[in-house]
């Protein structure tokens, strides 16, 4: 999946990936996609929950080795 910005959270545990996502998403334009890299398996359910609560769109997750990539689109477009 193509992303407009990438946030590397490898090695960080809850709540840091979500907190950093919340901070970074402010820098995106509405409609842009943020890719978040994590090796914390909790992100697969944390990110959809966060997206739902904040009104952003969870686009999906890809897994490669131990690395998980989740994609979120900023709302407001």
């Amino acid at each position, binding site marked *: 999946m193509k992303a407009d910005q990438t946030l590397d959270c490898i090695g960080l545990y809850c*709540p840091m990936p*979500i*907190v950093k996502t*919340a*901070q970074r998403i402010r820098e995106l334009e509405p409609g842009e996609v943020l890719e978040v890299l994590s090796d914390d398996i909790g992100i697969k359910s944390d990110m959809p929950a966060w997206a739902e609560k904040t009104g952003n769109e969870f686009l999906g997750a890809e897994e490669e080795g131990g690395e998980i990539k989740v994609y979120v689109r900023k709302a407001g477009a």
Partner: protein
Amino acid sequence: MNEESMTIIVFSDDLDRGLAAFNLANTGASMGMKVSMFFTFWGLGVIKKDGSAKGNKSFMQWMMGFMKRGGAKRLKMSQMHMLGMGTATMKSLMKKNHMPSLPEMMVLAKEQGVKFIACTTSMALMGLEEGDFIPEVDEFAGAATYLGLATDSKVNLFI
């Protein structure tokens, strides 16, 4: 957009409980929730300035203040403190795993707009004044203030 609120009563000054409280506060704030933390009784120790508190205090209060000098950097694990070894091990494990320390979590919470409220009754009991606390405390209030927030909140926790 999310309009939900969360309140957390921080009753304890254990390091592990403090971490749990701030973990939840930070996560809630990152999800757009309005988060208020009410520090009462031993919980005041989490928001105390480092070092000894000043102010007019009776001998009993002074003793209590000395034994419980508090400040987020000094807090102990609720279990396995082991005269300091357990707490030190825990802090070292956290650092190795890139987990923020309690003071760092508190800074993060402030950046995300979490409100810190100190319980005035507990302060009076322990002989503490406003100047004994970190400047990040937003309000000095009582249970009515807390319950006013809690009745409107979706999530209310006692830690």
